[in-house]
């Protein structure tokens, strides 16, 4: 059993057609940073709130360090939760906000003072301890919320889209900071986000969710390079998905008949013949000029984005995205007839 173990967790609200979270099973190791990633409404926040105890699971079990806490009330769970809107107490100043959890634990005044100072120093806000919450910027409020959650030395740190209310630049800095604090303290962390870049950048493991169920669990590399299905492939990074027919498969490589492209090859760890979907990332596709009678399609859009050029190539009814390194090859004009290709190891057969 893992440090934080969730088994067959189900949350179904009365009157709802389908459960918000269904059969959620996941083990999280001590010190691990795990992201729950998915579009809004996929059940990631509900799962987080069930771990915190703010939402009661309809069925299933939650264990922390071997002890069951499925029915433990929120205030006895000892989880540190950082809310999307920070949820700081507006009637208390920065230091009193951070001290709140220690007061509830009846920590001695002297020790509380020391720990509050430590926590505020950790988030680099030591100089603002006397400020009122209203006087703080969004980024500073975020840090106070983090300090308030960390000061109680929680068993697990839960982060509910903590970066979504910050502007883009601050978001990247805070992301790095949260990760470095997490590493420093070695605290087990569950991070909820809808932003795939965020999840890829900070996580030890990512749990991709959709409509209440887990689509895939894996390291950022596994999720990106070997998505388990169409949903994950589409949700993480940009993807070209081709309908294909597997004509022969052996030794991990499949021969395919791809609609509009003809005979191609792709990595295949399933080993079954028949209809399939093939994933090729845009930057792994090659495009080259071809005579009209030999071409797969026509260049429809050309977007120059500095270090690369993005082509939209019309193949039958579909548009295929191709990303080429600028300057590496001849630049193609709109209307050019082209052939598309890829290296076998850059294409993956999905279920």
């Amino acid at each position: 059993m893992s440090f934080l173990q969730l088994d067959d967790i189900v949350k179904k609200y009365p009157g709802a057609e389908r459960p918000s979270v269904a059969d959620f099973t996941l083990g999280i190791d001590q010190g691990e940073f795990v992201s729950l990633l998915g579009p809004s409404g996929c059940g990631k926040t509900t799962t987080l709130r069930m771990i915190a105890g703010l939402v009661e699971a309809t069925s299933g079990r939650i264990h922390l360090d071997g002890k069951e806490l499925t029915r433990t009330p929120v205030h006895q769970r000892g989880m540190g939760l950082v809310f999307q809107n920070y949820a700081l107490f507006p009637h208390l100043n920065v230091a009193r906000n951070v001290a709140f959890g220690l007061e509830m634990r009846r920590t001695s005044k002297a020790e509380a003072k020391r720990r509050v100072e430590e926590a505020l120093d950790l988030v680099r806000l030591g100089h603002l301890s006397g400020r009122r919450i209203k006087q703080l910027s969004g980024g500073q409020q975020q840090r106070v919320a983090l300090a308030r959650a960390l000061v109680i030395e929680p068993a697990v740190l839960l982060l509910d889209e903590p970066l979504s209310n910050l502007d883009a630049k601050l978001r990247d800095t805070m992301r790095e900071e949260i990760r470095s604090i997490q590493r420093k303290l070695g605290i087990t962390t569950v991070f909820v986000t809808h932003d795939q870049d965020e999840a890829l950048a900070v996580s030890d493991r990512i749990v991709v969710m959709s409509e209440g169920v887990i689509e895939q669990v894996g390291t950022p590399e596994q999720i990106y390079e070997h998505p388990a299905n169409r949903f994950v492939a589409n949700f993480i990074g940009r993807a070209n998905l081709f309908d294909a027919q597997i004509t022969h498969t052996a030794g991990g490589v499949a021969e395919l008949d791809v609609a509009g492209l003809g005979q191609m090859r792709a990595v295949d760890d399933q080993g079954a013949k028949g209809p399939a979907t093939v994933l090729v990332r845009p930057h792994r596709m090659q495009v080259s000029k071809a005579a009209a009678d030999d071409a797969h399609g026509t260049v429809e859009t050309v977007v120059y984005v500095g270090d690369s050029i993005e082509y939209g190539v019309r193949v039958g009814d579909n548009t295929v995205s191709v990303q080429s390194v600028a300057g590496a090859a001849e630049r193609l004009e709109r209307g050019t007839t082209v052939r598309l290709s890829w290296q076998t190891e850059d294409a993956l057969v999905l279920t």
Partner: protein
Amino acid sequence: MTSKFRGWPTRVVVTLLYLFLLAPILMVLVISFDAQSTMSFPPRGFTFQWYERLAQNAEFIHGFQVSAVVGVGVALLALLIGVPVAIALTRHEFRFREVMSGFFLSPLMVPAIVLGLALLLVLAPLKITGTYGGLIVAHLAITVPYVVRTTSMSLMTMNRSCEEAARTLGASPWRTFTRVTLPLIAPGVLAGGVIAFLISFDEAVISLFVVGPQATTLPVEIFHYVESRTDPQIAALSVVLIAISVLFMVIIERAAGLKKVLR
């Protein structure tokens, strides 16, 4: 207000409207200093004698004391009942919630005279008419709805995740209420209490049914006084009451902002 309302014709109209609305009050103020012994206009002479007599009028002083005690009692009890009711109505899902909500606001929809008669019919057999207790019970019927409303408003507009944050930080439900919820809804609660006091202090119609010789409120004393006497003492008393009301309104304004409370 946008600039198109700033023109002088609007100002004139608004000023006249306010003068029209405030004229009776100004009249009372002027008459309270009038040297004539019957209330009339225009005034002749200037005197403080009505204020002096007021300070010696045993009935008015007793009535004032009764009203103040009843008002404070009503305000405290209305909070004690109204705040939990507001929490139940805004925070908990239960059967008949809409019915309960309607029930707690319904006294405001019944004419006061009907309510007064009804309360007399209920309180008389309990033998508490003419007592402080009877007056307080009667006034609670019309003041609890205001407390429920102002408190509900605060509860609905406060950030609920503050309560959840307190819970995750180790606060029991009760401590979450006292340490987080109550401070955050304090403006609404305070406003409700002040409004309850003012309504109780001002209430005449219902009180008329349930007062007795031992416990007669100030509005009822005033009522009896003007039935037989017409000297400007009553105007002087009115000025004092207006001053008290204004004082309380200033307190609400400072605590919560009138607009927020009366919305």
